[in-house]
Structures are given as C-alpha cells and as structure tokens.
C-alpha cells in the first residue's frame, strides 16, 4: 500500500463549484427500492447529464443531516457515481474534503476492522460490517477524463467502500458480520 495519508491533490483541490451548477436536492430512495439492488452503469464523466447528477448528489448530501456520502442509486439513478465528504468526522484521519467520483474501483485494500454502519436508504436498521481501513481506489472526477488514484484510510476508507457498494447494487445489509449483526436503529436525541 502506497501513499496512505498522502492526499491526492487533484481530488483534495476539487470543488463542486467546478461543476458550474447549483444542483437540486433530490429525494433519497429507501430499501427495498429495486434501484438500490441494481448494478450501476459506467458513466461518461463529461456528459452534461452526469455533471448535473454530480451537482445534485452534493446538494442532496449537504441538506441531509449527518450525511457523509451519497451514491447515485440512492437518488434513483443506477450509475457509478458518488459524492463524499467526511470533513470533521471524529473518526476521519486522511481527508480529501468534498468530492464526487465516477466509475470508482477498489484496487488495493488491507487491515479489516468491524464497525457499525447506518445508511439513509435503510433508515431504521444498523449493522456491523467488516471493511478494510486502508484503501486505494481509482476513478475519474466529473468533468475530467484522467483516471486518478485515491489512497485513504480510517473513516474515509469506510465511507468510500460503502458508496462503491451502492454503485454496485449492494447495501451494508449484504455485508453484515453475522445473523445477529443487524440492529434496530437507536436514535436518541
């Protein structure tokens, strides 16, 4: 594993302003909606429709309390695109700020850890999921054509994998650590 903790500058410098669109807040779909179980299509990162989707994902993520990531299938579009921003989360170490990634693929991962995950598309349940804490992912920023490599760890690594799973039609429920690893969500405010 290379460059953990070393930020990909193109990714870290990317800003939703580069999309040149404000983005609409879309409705977040909930399981058992079939789109959440559909493998997303590869996207053309230069396609204006996809740029608009990128802006919508950021806008929807922004208005959703506690939301650190949102994948296209969660707004009803079976496509390989997600928005992420783990800035300020206590478990974050390496942090690339806000970004949208297209056609992301995990190329290297290591050091599994179990943690309890929740998801806006499965609002009433949480589950224990084991995931690598060190991760390298390739993908393309919207509006560009160059493939970039994102190397990250800790919470950003977990969040990226959760979103890539969405892009492939998988929920955390598909990865829970055992028959007794799904829990009613405990919301206490």
């Amino acid at each position, binding site marked *: 594993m290379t460059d953990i903790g070393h930020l990909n500058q193109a990714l870290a410098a990317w800003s939703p302003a580069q999309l040149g669109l404000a983005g609409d807040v879309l409705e977040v779909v909930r399981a058992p909606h079939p789109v959440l179980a559909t493998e997303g299509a590869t996207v053309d990162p230069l396609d204006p429709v996809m740029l608009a989707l990128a802006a919508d994902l950021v806008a929807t993520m922004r208005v959703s309390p506690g939301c650190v990531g949102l994948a296209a299938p969660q707004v009803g579009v079976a496509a390989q695109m997600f928005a992420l921003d783990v800035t300020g989360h206590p478990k974050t170490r390496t942090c690339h700020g806000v970004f949208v990634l297209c056609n992301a693929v995990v190329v290297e991962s290591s050091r599994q850890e179990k943690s309890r995950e*929740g998801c806006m598309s499965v609002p009433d349940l949480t589950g224990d999921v084991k995931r690598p804490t060190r991760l390298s992912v390739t993908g393309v920023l919207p509006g560009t054509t160059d493939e970039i490599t994102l190397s990250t760890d800790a919470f950003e690594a977990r*969040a990226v994998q959760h*979103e890539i799973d969405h892009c492939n039609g998988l929920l955390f429920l598909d990865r829970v650590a055992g*028959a007794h690893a799904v829990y009613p969500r405990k919301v*206490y405010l």
Partner: protein
Amino acid sequence: MSQLAVTVIGPDRPGIIADVTEALAQVGVNLEDSTMTLLRGHFAMMIVCTGPFGPVKEALEPLRGELVITVREMGPETAHAPLGAPYILSVHGADRPGIVSAVTRMIATAGGTVTDLTTRLSGELYVMTAEVELPPSAELPMLMRALEITAEELGVGVSLRPTESDDL
C-alpha cells in the same frame, strides 16, 4: 388476524425452520421479527408474526413432539422508544453462578434496560454481551465504578462502551 408470538425449542436437527415456517406460510402467516440460535445444541427460536391464532396452533400441531412449541396472542405492537444512549456491556471471566443477575441488576438500578443479550459458556470461560440503553439521568462514572466493584467481587472483567454507529 392478530399478532402472535411463536416459540420453538428442542433438540436441533436440519429442517426445523423450514418445517415451522412452511406450516405458518400455509395458513397465511406473515413473519415479522424473529431470532433463532443454538444454545448448547438446543434449537431455540422466537417469531413474532401476524396470522390467525386457531389455524396457526393447528398447523403447528404435527410438529410437536421433540419440539416444544408455544403460540401466544400478543397485545398491539408497541414501538420501543429508546430511553437513552446505547451501550455495549461485555463481561467475561471464570464461570460462577450469579454473574448475569449481579451485572444486569446494576443496569436496572441505574434505570437502564437491556435490549439484546447473549451469553456463552466455553469451558471455564463465561462470556456475556449485552446491548443496553441508559437514561440521561444515569451517572455513568458511578455506574462504571459499581460495575467494576461487582465484577471484582465476581472475579470477572467488565466493560461498558458507547455503541457507535456511523451514518454513511
């Protein structure tokens, strides 16, 4: 149609779940929450479901024998409103009587409630894992100290830590 609690206990064999749920499906039962595990080789399952009480009892009758099956009507569904923040309580150490009662009494005294509990005896090692909710009024440092004292008396280790779940 009413909400029913079905319990099934007995020596394990392949096919118990298939047999029970098939019998339930045949009388139009809709399964809701259920849990099943093996407790030292004994099959133990509880199902909350919606269906007709009489026909359900009748449908399960042929499975009785080695299996002890009960069917009860439950009151209206009640949503469990969390009474406070969730924690995981772990206790492990040399087996002896009274570990669970002593530790859960501490939680109850603090106004807390257990929402999930598993215990396992493995040789001499006794392991208890519980999900608990503690009310805002619970004084955590005092509870922790009380748990430690109790654990020390029992000769076991105890930990109480917040259940963290990350929204992704």
